[in-house]
Structure formats: C-alpha cells, structure tokens
C-alpha cells in the first residue's frame, strides 16, 4: 500500500494563529531513532558481527555471546555496551548457569511485522480491546492466509 504523505514545504511554525513564543525542541527520542539508523552503518566489523549474532539467535546470553563471536569476554562486553548505547540491541540482567550475566536481544524494531498480514489484510485485532478468535474478521484473515499467500 502506498500512502500519500502530504508535502510539508510550508513552515508549520509560521502558520497564522501561532500566537505564542515556542522553543523549537526536537524530541530526544526522534534523535535517538535517527542516530540508530545512521549508527548501524558506522559499526566496526566486530560490532557488526555481534549485531548479526544477536539477530540470528533472536537473543543470547552475554557469556555465550563472546564465545560464539570468538573474542575475549572483555571485548564482548565492550561490543554489547556499544550496541546498547546505539539502541541496536536490548540488554537485561539475568542469572544463567548460576552466574550473573546479561541477556542480549534484538529490539522490537527488527521484528518481521509482515507476519501480521494475511494477503493485504492486517491482523483484525489491531485497534480492538478484546481478541475474539471466532470473529468474522479473523475468519476472513485466516481465509486470506490460506488462499491468498
């Protein structure tokens, strides 16, 4: 589906009716998102391999991470540190084989969202409070899945 994105050539802040002074603060998060996209292109070779490993495994303990990657634990930890900072992976504390370590996982951004689609139909539960597995809309979605893919 193509969505027509309206042109934004006019300066929105100069719109008539903007009657007060405003500080033009860019949202912090918007910056982070932009940085993370750019960041991926600037990774070192090791960081790139590390990111690929996290994505391939779908999540890995840090103690396995550096072994798989064939680097020292100290280096592995620096790689993870850097990927977390760039917002490319998530990291949480965990206990694994009796010792404290981190679990390193891909961010939600990496998920294959097209799994919500059946043909050109989106999951019918989006925007709905309740999930009704017997709704007509879901039946239609399943028919699409079986006959249109």
């Amino acid at each position, binding site marked *: 589906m193509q969505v027509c994105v309206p042109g934004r050539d006019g300066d929105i802040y100069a719109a008539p009716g903007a009657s007060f002074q405003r500080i033009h603060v860019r*949202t912090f998060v918007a910056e982070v998102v932009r940085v993370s996209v750019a960041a991926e292109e600037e990774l070192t070779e090791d960081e790139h391999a590390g990111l690929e490993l996290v994505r391939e495994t779908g999540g890995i303990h840090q103690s396995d991470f550096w072994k798989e990657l064939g680097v020292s634990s100290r280096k592995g930890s620096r790689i993870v540190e850097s990927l977390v900072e760039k917002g490319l992976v998530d990291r949480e504390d965990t206990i694994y084989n009796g010792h404290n370590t981190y679990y390193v996982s891909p961010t939600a951004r990496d998920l294959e*969202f097209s*799994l919500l689609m059946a043909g050109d139909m989106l999951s019918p539960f989006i925007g709905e409070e309740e999930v009704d597995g017997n709704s007509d809309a879901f039946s239609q979605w399943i028919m699409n899945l079986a006959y249109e893919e």
Partner: protein
Amino acid sequence: MAFEDLLEDPVIQKYLHELVGPKGMPVAAAPPDGEVTDEELAEELDLELNDVRRALFILYENDLAEYRRLRDEDSGWLTYLWTFHYENIPENLEEEMHRLLAALEDREEYERNHEFYLCEVCSIRFEFGEAMDFGFECPECGSPLESMDNDRLVTAMDDRLAALREELNVESGA
C-alpha cells in the same frame, strides 16, 4: 518530518491507517519534528480541526503521541502542544504479534478438533453437530450440506504459528 524510516514500512502505514482511519491519515502519516498544535496541523494539512483532534487523541490512546497544555495569559485559552512518539510503534506491533499468536493458537485447535459442513450456495459453514441438527440441509436455502475439508486452513495456520513463534522466541504448546 520525523520517523521517515518507520513510515516507509507498508505494514506500519497500514497499522496507522487502521488506527486513525482515512480522514486521520494525513495527520498520522506526517509527524512533524518537535511540538505542534492541533490548529497548526489543521492549517498545514488543510483539514477540519475536529478530524485532526480525533486523530491526535487516537494516537495518544495508543502511546504514539502526547501533549502538554499551555494557558495563554491574556485570553485564558488553552493550547495543546503535541509531540509524536512513533518510536513506540515497534513495541506496539510486537504486542500485536503476541495477540495474534494467542488467537491463532486457539483457533487452530478449534479447527483441528471439529468437523465442518458447508452450504456451497450460501457459503455458510456449520459444525458437525449443527449440520446434524439441520438434517444436513442448509437452514437458509435447503441445499444439502457437504462435508468440508479444512486441512488447507490448518496448514496455513500452522505455518504462520511457527513463523510467529520463531520470530518472537516463544515455545510452542503453551
């Protein structure tokens, strides 16, 4: 405009469209950098103020926008300053993938454990018990009900279930 990379994803476009509807789509599809008022958006996008507000509040309910209020000291009027938070879209869609997975699990079990009969004229499907109650005749048109094979549905559901579990790192058979 912010979040261009997210908005390039056709699934995300569809998701936003599903939330705000066609009238709200110009608002949802062009999140500005920084803060913006509903009036500025209406002016910029040439939309009714009500449609803009409706879209903004739907985004707000889905954690995709927030506002702060300013009171104009002279007029006493309140101004709503909106910030878009599309960085939450991936987490929202992840949650939707989990909801879809749960629904598919239930439905797959139901499809596997029931036999179905179909009226080919009306395209209505009946469970075996219902079909028997109707004497294997369609209650709408009286045509005979034919046994219906749902293997293809079950296979398609199984494939998608496996893909979702793999993607979400979820064990099967919960």
